[in-house]
């Protein structure tokens, strides 16, 4: 049986039906993405590796509890569900380190009924990289990493989540993961891109 061509949702269903190889395929699909997400959350290589491991174990153990299992009927994609677990683990970890001043709060961005802004979905570029992207210089890449590093936790994590699905995670998915309204998710992303742009321009990329 080939698992490569199966969707995430088919794979997790197969795992729940006791097909362990289906789970290993999911592991291979997501382990690097999870680790990269936790690296962007500034946990370092080791911390990111541990947290990715914890996330995968959590997913694996949902098998034993029917109410915790992934279910497509609840509306979220497997990826959104997976990153919701990852995000919650991250928030728990950050809360334990609150003494160091790390906090993720969206309260200042929560404004009821104020939507109407152009959603980012319409700005999402095509799946194929542009020639500029292909020839991305090491220096520019470094600058992007440095600017990401300089963002506040909330904005950096929002970008890290948005970057999933190759930079196309829908705002409603992001809102679901963060546990905020869609307009709030939009505002935090907007703010994050704006800070990134200013930072890159400050480094001479105009």
């Amino acid at each position, binding site marked *: 049986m080939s698992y490569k061509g199966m969707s995430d949702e088919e794979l997790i269903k197969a795992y729940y039906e006791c097909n*362990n190889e289906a*789970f*290993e395929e999911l*592991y291979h699909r997501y*382990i*690097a*993405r999870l*680790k*990269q997400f936790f*690296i962007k959350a500034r946990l370092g290589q080791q911390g990111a*590796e*541990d947290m990715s*491991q*914890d996330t*995968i*174990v*959590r997913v*694996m*153990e949902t*098998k*034993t*509890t*029917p*109410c*915790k299992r992934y279910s497509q009927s609840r509306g979220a994609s497997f990826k959104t569900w997976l990153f919701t677990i990852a995000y919650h683990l991250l928030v728990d970890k950050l809360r334990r380190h609150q003494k160091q001043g790390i906090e993720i709060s969206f309260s200042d961005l929560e404004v009821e009924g104020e939507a109407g802004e152009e959603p*980012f979905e319409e*700005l*999402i*570029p095509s799946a194929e*990289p*542009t020639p*500029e*992207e292909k020839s*991305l210089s090491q220096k*520019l*890449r470094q600058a*992007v*990493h440095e600017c*990401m590093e300089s963002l506040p936790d909330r904005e950096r994590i929002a*970008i890290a989540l948005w*970057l999933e699905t*190759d*930079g196309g995670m829908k705002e409603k998915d992001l809102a679901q993961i963060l546990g905020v309204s869609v307009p709030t998710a939009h505002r935090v992303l907007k703010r994050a*891109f*704006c800070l*990134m*742009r200013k930072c*890159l*321009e400050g480094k001479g*990329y*105009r």
Partner: protein
Amino acid sequence: MTEREVMQLLRAVHKLDIEEQEKRIATERANCLPFTRARALVLDPTLWTENERSHLDTCRYCARLIETIERNIHPSLRALFLWQLKKLSGDEAQVVQYHLESDRCRRCLRLTQSLWLQGLVEAVKTGQRTLAQLEALPIVVSNTTPLPAPVPAFAPKLRPPFHIRSESQDGSLVVTVRETDEGELVAYVETPNRELFGRKVNLELLGERETLTAEVTFDFQHERGCVGQHSFGQFAELAPRLGRDFQVFAVLTE
């Protein structure tokens, strides 16, 4: 620079980051245990191969994986106890049922055979004891520990002396079971609480084939707490009686 350009740039960098990370993981974790294999090994430690054991000794990632699964997979003793009392319902009941009947967890199946726990179930059923009494006691439950394969008497003993140490969640009760230089299997109980001097610990070595029991008294007091010990007899004779593996179950008696 436009917002769209920022997004394109972020996306391009992210793509490269993921590719690098995938290569790195493929190299660094090539010999590591697959997650589902690690899960199977936690549920049934008799499945470990020599290669897997020696890999575990040198791999922090896999050692942590096994530890994380151990921490997440087993239901609480309280849940197992209520399951035996048939008083567990809803999600908790489903978890325990899956764990015992589908996963066939050796550790938890064996715990349900603890003589002390079975006695408590009966005592609660007849109203002589309460669940709160169980929850108030420090309890030690070790992981399932493989026993060394028997060595013929004429063969030189190459393995190190057998030794395991486990403690209760609050650290108030510690049990060490080890093979002495004289070849005896001895259990040591320790507590940092000096007030427990004279109290008894109900100890069970839950083996695959047989359960060994003892009541150990904290009969020696020092400035850092109390200790007690019990010898079960010659390890070489006891190991085959216990089977391929065993686990420690200990509880402070009232």
